[in-house]
């Protein structure tokens, strides 16, 4: 319909009555869907955001976008978060960004409120935010503060985000939550007790919440990436930080990790994003409480 509802000579006015949530949305496996992604400034978070944007999703991108006391390496920045948002907009998404620490429940709830108000719904939550260090010491050398920080971010953060969006998904009777765990959620790594415990906990959280939400068709799954290459475009640095914790020379860390890979190659961020995307879409309608491992065969041994 074309009309002029606001007075003469003021430019075109268009309008229409919509009856469904997605009738004007374009193509793509996530067209008309809204997703919340934590840790979206860089790395796997950016890779997932871009993969979602290409499939037509609209996005609420969250990141701590600043330093965390006790984490020995720089975390995602506000500039990196804005860059992820720009990339997603160029792919056709509507994007909201918020600076939020996953240890801050109120911040996550505010972000969830804003997402719903802006997009009308929340269909997907990707719990990607996480830290790899402080690590690199045996269990008895971990301090109370280090332990708390690791558990609070890597395990508690996912639970808080679920708390912020879960009720909406349950009310709407649909939704997909993807927790980005790690092969450290499946096997142990020497000198990574806190990280391994948190990621194992995240796998357990996934299974338990999957059962909580299953009757309401809200799905909860975990993806366990193995050694992911620090892709330059994604600005990832997790593998380098793990290497640093293990006192592997950072200059040659890729070769060191490849040696342990049955497929003789590191995992690419896009490989992980594809698995997350599959779990986010209706292609995995009956998949819940499951763990999808993307590790090039590392944990198969």
């Amino acid at each position, binding site marked *: *319909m074309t*009309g002029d*509802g*606001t*007075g003469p000579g*003021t*430019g*075109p*006015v*268009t*309008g*229409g*009555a*919509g*009856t*469904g*949530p*997605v*009738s*004007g*949305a*374009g193509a793509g496996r996530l067209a*008309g869907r809204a997703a919340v992604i934590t840790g979206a400034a860089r790395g796997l978070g950016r890779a997932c955001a871009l993969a979602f944007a290409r499939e037509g999703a*609209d996005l609420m991108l969250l990141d701590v976008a600043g330093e965390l006391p006790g984490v020995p390496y720089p975390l995602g920045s506000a500039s990196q978060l804005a860059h992820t948002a*720009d990339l997603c*907009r*160029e792919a*056709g998404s*509507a*994007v*909201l960004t918020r600076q939020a620490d996953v240890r801050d429940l109120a911040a996550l709830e505010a972000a969830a409120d804003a997402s*719903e*108000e*802006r*997009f*009308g*719904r929340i269909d997907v939550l990707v719990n990607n935010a996480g830290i790899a260090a402080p690590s690199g010491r045996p269990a008895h050398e971990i301090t109370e503060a280090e332990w708390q920080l690791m558990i609070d971010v890597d395990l508690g953060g996912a639970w808080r985000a679920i708390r912020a969006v879960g009720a909406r998904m349950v009310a709407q009777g649909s939704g997909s939550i993807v927790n980005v765990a790690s092969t450290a959620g499946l096997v142990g790594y020497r000198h990574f007790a806190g990280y391994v415990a948190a990621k194992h906990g995240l796998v357990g959280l996934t299974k338990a919440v999957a059962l909580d939400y299953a009757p309401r068709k809200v799905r909860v799954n975990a993806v366990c990436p193995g050694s992911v290459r620090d892709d330059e475009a994604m600005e990832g640095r997790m593998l380098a930080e793990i290497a640093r914790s293990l006192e592997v020379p950072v200059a040659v860390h890729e070769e060191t990790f490849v040696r342990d890979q049955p497929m003789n190659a590191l995992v690419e961020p896009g490989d992980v994003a594809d698995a997350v995307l599959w779990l986010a879409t209706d292609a995995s309608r009956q998949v819940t409480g499951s763990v999808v491992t993307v590790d090039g065969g590392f944990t198969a041994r």
Partner: protein
Amino acid sequence: MPPVQHSLTVRLSTNVTDAALDAALTAAAELWWPGDRRPRLWTEPVPAPAASDAAARRRAAEASRPVASGHRLRAVLLRYGDERREGAAAAPDLVLTADGSALDARSLRVVARVLRGDLAPEAVTPLAGPLPLDLRLDEETRRLASALALTVGRYEGASAVRVAVPVPARDRPPYALGALDGYAVFAADLSPGRTVAQLLATEPVAPAVGEEPPSPELMASDGPAVLPTGPGTLPVPARQVDDIRQQLLTSTPNARLSQLNPLSEAESAEQLALGARPAPPASSLRIDEAFAAQVAARPEAPALTAGSTTLSYAELDARAEALADGLYARGVRPGDLVGLCLPRSTDLVAAMLAVLKADAVHVPLDPEHPADRRERTARDAGVRLTVEDPATLTGHPPRPAAPRGEPGSPAYVIHTSGSTGRPKGVVVPHANVTALVDAVREDFGLSPDDTWTCFHSAAFDFSVWEIWGALLTGGRLVVADHWTTRSPEDFHALLVRERVSVLSQTPSAFTQLAAADRTAPDPVGTRLVVLGGEPLGARPLLDWFDRHPEDRCRLVNMYGITETTVHVTAATVTRRDALAGSRSVGRPLPGWSVRVLDAHGRPVPPGAPGEIVVGGAGVALGYLNRPALTAERFVPDPLDPAGRRLYRSGDLGRLLPDGTLEHLGRIDDQVQVRGFRIEPGEIRHVLLEDPAVSAAAVTVTGGDAGDAAAVRIDAYVVPAPGAGEDPGPVRERAARLLPPHMVPATVTVLPALPLTANGKLDAARLPAPGTRRDPVTAPAPAAAAHEAGPAAALAAIWCDVLGVETIGPDDDFWDLGGNSLYAIRIGTLARERGLPGVPLRQLYLTPTLGALSEALARKT
């Protein structure tokens, strides 16, 4: 119920700032909805030029995005990539989306004007409650609603269509905010005979409380209602609605609605072309000429097998020549009708050929039909003579040589059930039959290597296909005798023994045969199965495909009518169709055409239901001695300069965009039972002829389940004054006049038939049918009741199959609603339950439970 949400996209000026707009929104919201949740302004950078497709997609996405629950309004400012371009800066767009239960479309415009600074927020009046609706429609809107209803009616084949029309609230203050406007229901009556003026005068009504708006809907606008645009928003093409609107504008008030057509001439022509299947020009032949060519080509090849006898083409030809001489000697002359009442045998086929050689027309009379019915049919047809014993035709001198008639002259007359109560004789010329064989010869790969069966009665035109399909392609025809056709196991054995390659069956019979094939030691080796005569339920074929893959045995479903020479369309059925439960009957044969027309003979819109009308090479000459009926059903093709005729089938169909036809059933109450089309009207007519009957009604039930054996005919009669109340003689008389598949299972005597207010029969109020004799009253012998032996087991089988609760030894299988398919089921169940088999022949000979048990006991 209002629409779920509205949206409005407004282009702002280039110099508007986010802060100013946000402030205006906040100020207005606080004034209008103090203390309520305030809408926020969301700014979205769109890294693409305002005029780009990407920007258009973003606008569409924002406009259709749901409003979060608990919010009445969302405001999104889209700023484009070319916003700061020198000289031609793109202005931002404001997309306002409102919850339809809070704000209507006009309210949204008021909000937009305020945010653009064209209107002071103080001038606006927020209203909470609903206002009464103004149901008066202007002429434009009436016309548009009428046009939409008419077009939708044409697509749905419906004569009543409801359209939702947006109407404003009455006494709406200027600049009001709220969910105030609503819609009215425009219930259009499109019944035949209605005029343009009557339709336009339709009074809109307010929807009932809680009523969903009808789909289709018109859209609100400032002026009259408008058509919604955009993909999927209308069930019909908007252009056609507009065409009808124009036609409404220019037609006279008294014009019939049937004179309006949403299809353009080109669209109508397209629909007609879709169902046309021209054939390459071929020389048309008489059947006997085409047969003679096969005799000349391969005189020694086997032509016809019955039992242990096989005739070569030359022998069959010689036999037919001899019989033709006999026909001549008995006075048969060119054009005469000759009744053929012969059992399935080599002589049945030879006699058919003989009649054709004598340049006469054969009229098959099924020896299994009651003698009275056969006599009536022969008398009605005016046959010169009826051949019942071929011996009387042998030993006569050769007939004089004479040129035979043209290929367009009649070859046979087959009688089909008629709604007027009398069977109608369909007159089919030679050329139709030879054209039919030519139409499929190549596609079906028909060759002298093929062996066919003649399974069907000569009185059912499926046999025309079987006989001439074999003999005009050099194949061998194996005639199955009566008892073999009634036993799937025996027939299966015949198929294996004779290495039959081309098989024709009704779907019901094929289901029984496939069951026999499952348990038989050797599977059949057919390469082609032609299914026809009744609608196909494709799903049960899956099991057949498991044993006979499609690349080894092709299954073809053919739709056809006696009046169009056996077949019209063909569809190869595959696993895909079986899984989909396809109703497609495929495309017309080359040389045949199908059209789907409305009651006024116009092509219906694509995919809409209508009457299947058949044209082309198969259209029969008409009904014998029934000029009025012929003129009604065989109509001149208005598009054919040669004036060839079309046959109006009375079948409901749908022509799909790929040119395939879906068969949706009979338009009238005609039903198909085991491949025979019957009309309750004919049965009723026979009942009404009975002097003891003053009124009669017939119901046919169970046909929709796709199980031919479950089809049940029940009759209700009102005795004539002074006549007795015993339905027995009524049924017995009907059984003498009707073929077995049309004899009612029950006849119930009623004091009067229930009628509707219009004086028509109210079938829904007929009582449950009673059996002619109450089986409970027939006392079962005490011994038999407690016996657990074969007799009791057989009684249990009868109860299961016939659906009765108790049964006595004197109860008659046929009186309890038995039919031949039930008989086969009894045989199958008996074998499954370890009883001696129940040969069909035995059931015919001893049809009561007691007699049958005794007969079976004697055998074991």
